[in-house]
């Protein structure tokens, strides 16, 4: 009797181990699939582009205007950049992908974007989404070598964060043409820094 019970327990333990291995492998597959397959950006033309000129954050719409407080203390509105293509990039300064993204942008893509006349606006998500992080000026100095010509840093209000980042992503970008229309958007600028250059 005791021997039979022991064998049953051993079988059960073996079953648990197999289940754990299967669950682990499944989770690994899901994670790998996510990393490889999930599209992070939405290039223009991949979905139905709005033909009108309504204001909104979808492709083809006019990017909603808002006020940015720049790191030099001055205020500027998004509309002030009409006539120039704009890369509007919202970040949480504590997120490592934003930090790596700033380094990549600074070292490899800034010159190419500027050659196309693109203004880069890096805006801290309101209150860093409630988490402690360095101020945007420190973020700029530490990861992108400070403010450069055509690359501005600033903060904005809570409403702006709600409008442009309704899903509370840590890192979300909008490529805006010189008429203020949204050409591309996505979460995770560093995933496709090369792709963003070709959007403009």
């Amino acid at each position: 009797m005791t021997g039979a019970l022991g064998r049953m327990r051993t079988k059960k333990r073996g079953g648990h181990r197999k289940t754990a291995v299967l669950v682990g492998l499944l989770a690994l597959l899901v994670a790998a699939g996510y990393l490889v397959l999930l599209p992070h950006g939405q290039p223009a033309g991949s979905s139905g582009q709005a033909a009108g000129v309504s204001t909104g954050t979808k492709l083809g719409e006019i990017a909603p205007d808002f006020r940015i407080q720049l790191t030099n203390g001055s205020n500027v509105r998004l509309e002030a950049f009409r006539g120039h293509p704009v890369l509007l990039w919202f970040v949480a300064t504590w997120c490592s992908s934003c930090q790596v993204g700033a380094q990549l942008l600074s070292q490899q893509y800034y010159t190419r974007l500027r050659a196309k006349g693109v203004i880069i606006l890096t805006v801290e998500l309101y209150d860093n989404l409630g988490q402690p992080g360095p101020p945007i000026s420190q973020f700029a100095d530490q990861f992108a070598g400070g403010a450069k010509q055509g690359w501005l840093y600033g903060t904005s209000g809570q409403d702006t964060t709600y409008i442009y980042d309704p899903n509370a992503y840590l890192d979300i970008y909008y490529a805006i043409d010189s008429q203020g229309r949204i050409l591309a958007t996505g979460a995770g600028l560093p995933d496709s820094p090369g792709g963003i250059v070709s959007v403009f």
Partner: protein
Amino acid sequence: MGELFAGRAYAAMFVSLFVAFSTLYMFLLPSLPLGTPVPQAIGFLTPLQAAFALVFGFLIALVISLDALAFRMKASSARSLTVGSILASLVNGLCCTPVVPTIIAMTGASTPALFGLSPRIQAFFEFNYPYFYALSVGLLLISVHYVSRSIFSCCGAGRMASIGTVANVREQ
């Protein structure tokens, strides 16, 4: 462990796996927060990530080599713990990729709930990822311990030495 490397085939397997996995992790660890493999990310490898990449590479190579030996000797292996440790080392991806907010949004959470919950979870993974790396190392060490113990309890050092000798003879 010395007996493991008595066979040159196992020693070669260990060295190859060590180089392969260390290289993979040196590329993977700085890429994880980005959510996708970005080749340039290796340029932003931190000293902490480099150190963990080497430790992961060493331990995973050791576990797989010991597993191969255990398989040959019909002893049980400890693969489930290895899988667990690999998963624990991947949690850095839960910080900055859209996976957490997407999952929360899929549960039907409203915008205020998303803003309250999602950044908090992502910040937790961002600030605590070294502990998850350490957890991975711990699980790998347990894997090494279990598979070594099962080899010793199954077959003893004498049989292991003989396998090493056979492997050497076959190579010659």
